[in-house]
């Protein structure tokens, strides 16, 4: 962890730039007013966690920074690794415990070198069943409608190419379907569907958050910087195609979010499981830097409702 921490502080200096006193005081005062509003009076806040394999562990850092700042979150959606992290968070797991789970999450995805060898030698798709079991161990065999925060995740039906947004029924199998990387894991058969990773159709599921009623959305995006990668094997090339497809989809989805936070994890590839802690730290750094802008955006979005309280009866 210490070695990872050494690498991630470049550019953190932006945090210390002076801002006008009036802006700071106004944000402080209005943030107190917005964050103390009853949840049913302020805009419903959505947190959207993108796909992104190991890079997506940065979402944990984003959640940690939001939690430290007391930032309210009502709705969580995620795709692939975003679905795993999002389900744990929406299922009631505190940020501090999420932070400690990074190693388990990597194991939970079953994506290690031995399993890949099995895939290559026997041409046999891997099972992602272990993730479902692991998830149940973490948050129980929850149903969507029993989660402490509203949650949805996205998968794709391999037979129809449809985007499937899960928001009811059991959580664990839906999350498993959402992170079921095609070509590596065998499709999940569920509700007469043949389900694979949702990143192929919905890399940043802002639409799913809106569907759950989110009126204001913060999207945590962990895209791969594929322009810098030169894959030299079949798997690397295939994965890069997924990433390129995801990035094209992300362009449209990110426009639908009110604020986008992008941890600097673009150089972390799917096989860099050892860089998980570094990704988490980068999530904290990115969200901490973005926090004032994020608060300001939500304040401005809430202004019409605040004005109703502020005007004399």
């Amino acid at each position, binding site marked *: 962890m210490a070695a990872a921490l050494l*690498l991630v502080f470049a550019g953190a200096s932006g*945090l210390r730039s002076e801002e006008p006193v*009036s*802006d700071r005081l106004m944000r402080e005062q209005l943030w107190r007013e917005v964050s103390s509003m009853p949840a049913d009076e302020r805009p419903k806040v959505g947190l959207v966690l993108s796909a992104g394999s190991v890079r997506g562990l940065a979402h944990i850092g984003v959640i940690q920074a939001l939690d430290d700042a007391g930032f309210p979150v009502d709705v969580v959606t995620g795709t692939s690794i975003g679905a795993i992290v999002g389900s744990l968070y929406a299922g009631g797991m505190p940020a501090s415990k999420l932070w400690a789970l990074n190693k388990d999450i990597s194991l939970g995805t079953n994506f290690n070198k031995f399993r890949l060898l099995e895939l290559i030698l026997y041409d046999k798709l891997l099972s992602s069943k272990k993730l479902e079991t692991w998830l149940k161990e973490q948050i129980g065999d929850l149903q969507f409608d029993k989660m402490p925060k509203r949650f949805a995740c996205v998968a794709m039906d391999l037979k129809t190419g449809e985007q499937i947004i899960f928001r009811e029924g059991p959580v664990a199998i839906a999350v498993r379907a959402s992170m079921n990387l095609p070509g590596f894991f065998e499709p999940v058969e569920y509700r007469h569907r043949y389900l694979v990773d949702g990143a192929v159709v919905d890399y940043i599921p802002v639409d799913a958050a809106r569907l759950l009623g989110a009126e204001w959305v913060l999207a945590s995006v962990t895209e791969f910087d594929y322009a810098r990668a030169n894959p030299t094997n079949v798997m690397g090339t295939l994965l890069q195609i997924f990433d390129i497809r995801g990035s094209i989809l992300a362009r449209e989805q990110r426009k639908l979010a009110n604020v986008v936070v992008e941890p600097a994890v673009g150089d972390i590839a799917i096989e860099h499981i050892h860089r998980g802690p570094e990704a988490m730290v980068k999530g904290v750094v990115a969200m901490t830097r973005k926090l004032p802008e994020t608060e300001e955006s939500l304040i401005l979005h809430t*202004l*019409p409702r605040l004005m109703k309280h502020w005007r004399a009866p």
Partner: protein
Amino acid sequence: MNGPASAALLALALSSSAHAAPETAPRPPVQDALAGVQLLFDQQDYGRVVGRLTEPEMQKLGRQDLRRAYDLLGQSYQRLGQQDRAIGVYQLAAQLFPKDLNLTTHLADILHHQELDDQARALYESALAIHPNNGSAHLGIAEIARATGLLEQSQEHYEKCLLEIKTDARVWRGYAEVLAKRRNYSKAADAIRKALELDPDNAPTLQSLAQFQRRQGKREEGYASLAAATAAADASPRHQDIRPELSLRKASWLFEDGRLDDSLQEAESVLLRFPNDPFALWLRARIALKRGDENAAAADLEAAASQSRSSPFAAAVAKGMLKELGGGQ
């Protein structure tokens, strides 16, 4: 040393001379070798320190004196405002004496103050590898972690630092800030009181205490500390710049507490000196709105909205409110 090339040459020369010198060779006493330079440094005559510590002079020094000479040279450059040269000197020194905690942490401190935190942190970590209890290294990491949002880690390093450095108000202030960010206001207030014991009548520290007290619901104590901060700022030229902020904060609190007349009076005291202050204008507009005077509110909001260059967020809020009032674009 006039540039990187000469600095590198000096490094090579010093490096070879330092390493070639047998450890047991007789050396003049430390005080004698650098006494004159130390005196100049103590007299804050940093230009002459730099002038005295030339390449040939430094080559004459033994290892222990050379460490000290580097430190004096680096600090002199630093105090002359030549940070890049100071960094160069400390980088050379840290290469020559990689296990010298003082040089390593000093280099890390300069890099940290130049906001080169990735490099600074690596040096602090290496200092801790040599001496796990080094207070300066713990402080450096605590500050970097605080700035980057790694609050739990920052708190841990502050606590380790405070085992070694107990009498520096700056450390207690930083520790208090982390605790407050973690919303532990009670402990933050305790820490900031320690800072005040060491540096009484410090207006920013008193303001922090006031904020922590208010966040604990201790309103009257908060007002009292804010008044003390105001008095301290009035009495101290170095803290004059936070005086308007103290008045604005008080006006804001009075408004939150429903003391509209008092809040208005405080906001107007700021507007007398700074007629376009967007926060004071905005507060006055909020008071006018509460009292049903939407025209007066709109006038103040128009003025606040025009400050988008100096206070973009305050101006955006004012514009948003005007739109709701039906008077904005």
